[in-house]
Structure formats: C-alpha cells, structure tokens
C-alpha cells in the first residue's frame, strides 16, 4: 500500500531521473513484498527462467544418457547395478517433466507474461487482488522449494504423471514433490481467479469485451481452466499424499482401490492443463503476428471464441490418454471424437494467422521469427496429434517416443517458443532496453533448427517402436537417438546465445522507445518501462489492431500515433522521452 502512495509522488517529482516501476523504490523488500503486478511478473519470469534452466539441464542429461544404447551416464555391468543406475535416470526424467510442466509451462505465461501485460493491455492500474497475486507468487516459490527439497533428499522417480500404484510403493520422496505441486496448484488457482475478476471488473470505460486484445481473451479462457480444473488435481494429489502417509487405499489395488481412477483424476486436470499451456501461447502469437504484419488480425471474433470453445471442450477429452488402459470401447470412441472436435478450432487459428499475414507488410524482427517458428512447429505438433487421437493408430504409438516427439513439438515448439517470442516482444516494455536484433535472429534460427533436429527423430523412432522413459534401448534406435541428442545440444547453444544478449541488453542495451514495434494495444501508450501506476490518465481505448495511424519515427526509432480523422487522438497521451525529462 505504501508503495502506491510513494509511487504516485514519484510521477510528479521534478527530478531528471526517470522513475519507473523497476527503479523506484529500490529496496529488496520493496521487490519481495511488492503488490505491483509488473514486479510480480518480473519475479515470476526470473524464477521461471531459473526453473527452465534446471529443467533444461535435466533434458541435456537425459539426452546425453541416451547417446548409447546401454546408457552413457547411468549404466552398470550387472543387472542389479543397472537397476540402481537407471533409478537415477528415472529421477532425472521425472524432475525434467515436473519442473517443465508444473513450474514452467503452466505457471510462467500467466504468471510472468500475463501478470506483466494483462492490466496494461486492459488499461487497468493493477490486477483485482494485488495481495492475492503476491500470495500466489510466494506459493509458487514455496512449491518450487519443496520440490527442490525432494531433489536433495531423493527425488521422486515416478514420472511427472505419478501413476499409482508405482507412486505409492516407490521409496523416493514422493510426498515432498507432491506437496510442492499441491502448492503450485493453489498458486495457479489464485492467479486464474485474479485474472478473471480483473478482466470482468477492471476494464476502463470503452474497453468492451470485443476491444480486448486477443491475449486477454486467451488468458481469460486459460484462467477459467485454471480455476475449474486445478482443484481436481489438488484433491488427487491430496489423496496420493494420504495414500502414502496413511494408506487410505483409494488408488491402491493392494487395498482394493482402483489405479485407473487415479489416471482419470489426473488427466481430468492434466489434459485441460495442456490448454492452460497452449492457449496463452496462441494469444501471444495473435498479438505478435498482426503487429509485425502491420495488418488487422483476421477473424478476431473467431479467434476469441475458439479460445473459449477449446477451453470448454478441452475438459471432456482427458480419456484419450487412457486408450490402452482398458476403458470400454464406447468411452474410447467418445473421447476420440471429442479430441478431433477440439483439434479443429486449434488448427483453424493457424489459418487465421496466415490470413492476417496475407497482403500485410511483414517485418521479420525477432518476435515475428518466433511467431513463424510457432506456426511451423505447432503445425507439426498438431498433425502428429491427429494420429494419436485416432484409436487404431494410438494403439501402436501410445507411450512411445512418437508421443514424446508430439508433445514436445506442441509444448516446446508451441508454448516455449511463444513464451520466448513474448519475452522478446515485451522485453523493451519490461526493461526499457532493446536487445541486439542481429543476435536475436541468429538465436531464433539456431533454436528452430535445434528443435527440429531434437524432436523429429523422436517421431521417427517412436513410430518404429521405441517406448518412452527408457534408460537403455535396442541398438537399432541409436542413430535417431543420437541425432536427437545433437539437436538438444544445438538448442543449448541457442539458449546460451539468448541469455548472453538479453543479459547484455539489460545493462548495456539501447534505451527503448515507448512503442518500438508499432503495437496498437494500450501497453505501448505507456513509457518503457511503465510507471508504478501504469497509466497516469485513464487511457482512451480504440481498436487494438488498427495500425493505420501509427507511423515510424526514425528519430525515436519507434512508432508514434498521428492524429487522423475519425480516430482517437493518442498522441497527447504518449509521454515522449523529452517531455518526460522536463515534465
């Protein structure tokens, strides 16, 4: 609260130093206890990137292990020695899955990008419940700490799916891990709840539902899933903890329980969770593509409603993870049908993006390169998903590397690529600095190659029969496994380059103009970086995808809004650097 009042003073101060949300106030406690959505977003981003780094390290270990059929890192000469060694491998891939899913893919786009941009895109001063937002962040931190604690004592070796009865009987610290994820779940619920209320109640005058940027729509659909699905994983994990601590027996066949029920519960959350991961990514792409095509988004309403449709139907397709576990053929058929039904709106969004590019003026800057990478990779991910959704082919591909390849194309090629795109797109707004466009493009191209070299061989070898979660494998799979490992190393190079130029830009980067890309959404009307209160005056809301009166100003190296007939006059609300200095 106190920050709010002091920051208000800051905007009226007559000092030449620019005060913005990053540098005022500067104390550590003012960051850790901040109620400012932007700071919370930046903290999510920082921690999320750290988690991504650890998860990525695990991925590199996994890929290195799989260089040779017998296992390069974890191996043994006797069968018992192999069991001991492979258990460590299993812990590594479990950690990779848990970190990437629960600590990066699910929370980071809403937590980091959503928190930072949502109120700005809406024209609001903050999210509806800033304190809850902070609690959400600290729940996230506690969840991560608990999970890391389990890593020190003896990480779970259950796979990220925690299938019973293995997760009940293994001697690793599953309870720690599961409690951590339980907390992460609450963090996710509170974030979703916060966003829904924000979108409903904190829109300024003029921001009607159909003037909301599409990322807001996507976040809205995502939040609805977070609120509706996460409690189910909460109770599932609670039951799993009780299984291990008290032997409650609901999921344990040895006590008369039903292990398949666990799978239903788990996927009732975890399939919609896939949409928690991909919908905001689609929202990001819907923001980037029109800006860099200098053209209004094509089929706004379709994209907005398809997000909601995907969110809704996405709740009824969880059973497609259980085609080979013995559920009845009727259920299999229903789930397969609904899966195809939800595939169509996801796929058709791609056509909308292509139509947006048609006859545009396409600027191939780094964020746009990521958006195009997204289109290509998500297409491959989606089409391989079609094969898995069909019942007869799923029987021969279930639990193989084909599935691994498929969901990495969607999750990495989709969500992570979009996340990186979003970071590049909003980087100037977040930190007020520009990064090196040259190195940005180089890293994007390398990453794109790396992703394909990593995951395409996995599709091939999976179709040929290699099962997933194998610490060792049959020799005939080796060429593909090796290619995949080389791809993983290429990705590592791309990420190192990225880390280098982004960190460089933080300290040495050129100062960013208010609107470097020519975006028409409201966040670009604020200075870079924005002040504590986001908008000094209530913003005037127009069409978020109308670029007709934004022109490039070489002096600023950014875009400014020129007054034209029949359009809102924003120019006066854009604080120019000169104006601000002498304000």
């Amino acid at each position: 609260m106190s920050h709010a009042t002091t920051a208000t003073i800051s905007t009226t101060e007559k000092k030449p130093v620019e005060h913005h949300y990053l540098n005022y106030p500067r104390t550590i406690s003012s960051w850790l206890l901040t109620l400012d959505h932007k700071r919370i977003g930046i903290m999510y981003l920082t921690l999320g990137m750290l988690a991504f780094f650890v998860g990525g390290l695990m991925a590199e270990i996994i890929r290195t292990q799989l260089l040779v059929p017998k296992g390069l890192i974890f191996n043994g000469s006797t069968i018992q020695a192999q069991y001991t060694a492979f258990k460590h491998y299993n812990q590594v891939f479990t950690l990779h899955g848990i970190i990437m899913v629960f600590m990066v893919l699910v929370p980071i786009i809403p937590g980091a990008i959503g928190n930072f941009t949502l109120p700005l895109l809406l024209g609001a001063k903050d999210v509806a419940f800033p304190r809850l937002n902070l609690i959400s962040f600290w729940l996230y931190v506690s969840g991560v700490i608990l999970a890391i604690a389990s890593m020190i004592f003896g990480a779970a070796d259950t796979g990220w799916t925690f299938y019973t009865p293995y997760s009940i009987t293994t001697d690793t610290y599953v309870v720690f891990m599961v409690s951590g994820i339980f907390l992460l779940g609450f963090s996710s619920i509170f974030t979703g709840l916060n966003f829904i209320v924000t979108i409903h109640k904190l829109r300024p005058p003029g921001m009607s539902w159909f003037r909301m940027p599409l990322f807001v729509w996507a976040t809205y659909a995502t939040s609805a899933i977070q609120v509706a699905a996460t409690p189910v994983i909460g109770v599932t994990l609670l039951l799993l903890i009780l299984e291990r601590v008290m032997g409650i027996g609901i999921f344990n066949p040895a006590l008369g329980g039903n292990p398949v029920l666990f799978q239903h519960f788990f996927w009732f959350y975890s399939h919609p969770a896939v949409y928690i991961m991909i919908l905001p990514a689609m929202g990001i792409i819907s923001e980037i593509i029109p800006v860099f095509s200098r053209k209004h988004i094509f089929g706004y309403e379709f994209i907005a409603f398809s997000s909601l449709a995907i969110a809704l139907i996405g709740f009824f397709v969880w059973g497609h993870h259980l085609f080979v576990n013995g559920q009845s053929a009727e259920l299999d058929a229903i789930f397969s049908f609904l899966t195809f039904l939800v595939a169509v709106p996801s796929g058709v969004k791609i056509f909308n993006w292509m139509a947006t590019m048609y006859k545009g003026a396409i600027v191939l800057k780094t964020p746009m390169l990521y958006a195009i990478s997204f289109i290509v990779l998500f297409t491959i991910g989606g089409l391989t998903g079609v094969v898995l959704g069909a019942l007869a082919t799923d029987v021969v591909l279930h639990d193989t590397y084909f599935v691994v390849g498929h969901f990495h194309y969607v999750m990495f090629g989709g969500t992570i690529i979009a996340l990186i795109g979003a970071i590049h797109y909003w980087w100037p707004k977040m930190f007020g600095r520009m990064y090196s466009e040259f190195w940005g493009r180089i890293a994007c191209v390398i990453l794109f190659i790396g992703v394909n070299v990593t995951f395409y061989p996995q599709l091939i070898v999976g179709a040929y029969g290699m099962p997933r979660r194998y610490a060792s494998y049959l020799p005939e799979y080796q060429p593909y496994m090796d290619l995949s490992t080389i791809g993983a190393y290429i990705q590592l190079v791309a990420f190192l380059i990225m880390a280098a130029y982004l960190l460089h830009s933080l300290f040495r980067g050129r100062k960013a103009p208010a609107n470097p890309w020519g975006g028409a959404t409201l966040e670009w009307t604020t200075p870079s970086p924005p002040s504590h209160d986001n908008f000094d005056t209530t913003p005037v809301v127009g069409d978020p995808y109308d670029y007709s009166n934004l022109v490039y100003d070489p002096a600023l190296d950014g875009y400014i809004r020129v007054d034209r007939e029949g359009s809102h006059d924003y120019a006066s609300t854009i604080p120019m650097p000169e104006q601000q200095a002498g304000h």
Partner: protein
Amino acid sequence: MSEAIPLSTNEQEILRKHLAHHFDTPQQQFESGKLGMWLFLATELLLFSGLFCAYAVYRALHPDIFRFAAQWLDWTSGLINTLVLLSSGFTMAWGIRLAQMGKKKGLAVCLILTMTGGLTFLAIHGYEYFDKYRERLLWGTLYNPDLGGNGKPVLQEASAAPLVGGSQPARTGDWPLLNQLGQAGYIVSHSDIAPAADGPSGIVQSAAAEPATLPPVQPYNVQIFFGIYFIMTGLHSFHVIVGVGLMTWLLIRTLRNDFGPTYYAPVDYVGLYWGIVDMIWMFLFPLLYLIH
C-alpha cells in the same frame, strides 16, 4: 444504495480507508471481491466434486460395500450435526443482515452463535471419529472391526484367504492369487479381518444366528468405504475449522468497530463461505449416512 444517501464523515472515512488504489469506486471493489469469492467457492466445490466422483465410481461398482458399511454410521449424530450446521447457517445470514444495518452488538452475538454451531459440529464429529477408531472402523489395513458378536455381522470369506501358520499374510501383493482363482474385473483382495477360527463366536456358528436385517456376509473391501468416509468428512471438517477461525477474525474486527453499513464486505464473504460449507454437508449427510 449507499450512493443515494449522503454519508456521514465517519462512513466516508471508512470507505476511503478500505478503497485500494487500483479501484475507482467502492462499488467496483465490493463487486470484484464478491466475484472473486464466488470463484473461490466454485473451486472449493470442485475440490469436493473430485471426492464425490470417487464416491460415485465406487458406489456404482460396489454397492454392496456401501450398503454393508453404512450401517455402522450413526445417522442420529449425523442428523444432529445437520441441524446444528443449518442453524449456524441461519445465524450467519442473520449476522450479515445485522452488519448491513450497522448493529455491531447483534453481529457479534450472531458470530458467536455461528462459531458455537461450528464447534458443536466439530465436537460431535470428533466423537464419531473416536467411536470409529475404537471399533477399528478405519481405512486401508487399519480396518479391523470385531465382527464376532454384539449383533454385528460376521465374516465368511475370511476362509478364502490362505492361512498358514496362524497369521494372515500381509495384504500387499496378495491379490494376484485371487486373480488366478479366476475372478474377473476388480480383484477383491481378501480381508485382513481376524479369522476368529475358534471359540463360541467363530465364523460359522454365529453366521447362522445373524439377524436377518443385516447383510449376513461382509463384502470385500469395506475399508474403501471408510477411506472415502474419512477423506470426505475430514476435508469438510477442515473447512469448518477454517470457518471458525474466520469467525474469530471477524469477531475481533467487529469488536474493533471495523464494520458499518457501508463496509461489511468481509462479513459477506465469510457468510458465503459458511454457506458453501453448510451446503457440502447437506450432500455428505445423505450420501454417507442415509444409504439404506
């Protein structure tokens, strides 16, 4: 309403104090809080809905377990608890009304009455738990009631379990045997119940003397029912405890004169929460206690 009536300076003071910087009007803030609270309560319902699903699945697959086990639940204490919760829901609603009217004393009394209701509920429930514990009507391997007499049903299947050396083999890993005996579908693991092989209250003798009203034979996996019973009621009781804690907080704030006709949102939110806690019990009671 509050906009129409000119506010006293004190009320304006309260309003200003409680308006966060990012809201434009108290109305907007109140509505946001209320929407947030409704969403949160929706997630609470969904949390329980998972358990209701588990209940439904097991009841559909094994109705015999539920019929057999429910006879051990004391429906009278369940009914008393239902009435207690209903009346506490009433006092809570009344408290919100009094808070809107600015009657602090009345609000305090209502809060105390509601808390008392919650605590009575917990006490009765705690006694029930204790009773179940004494009778070893617990979950998993801890389910081990004395079926030998007292008009309670006895077990016949115990003999189906392989018995060697006088003690039962551990449950874990035993079910494949029954599997190989050719039982399809869900394999029923044998019970851990003491075989009561000798003595006057042994299996066969007293089975014949069973009253006809009770199922003569204990089905397999009765422990599943008690697992579900303890999880559902336990999670609900946890919510009651949280509710009582929130009432305490409200009571302190009431006595501190925090609330008035213009600002009573926390009372309203806790009231909503308490309503949901009541409502969940209204489902739990018939589903668990009134199976017959």
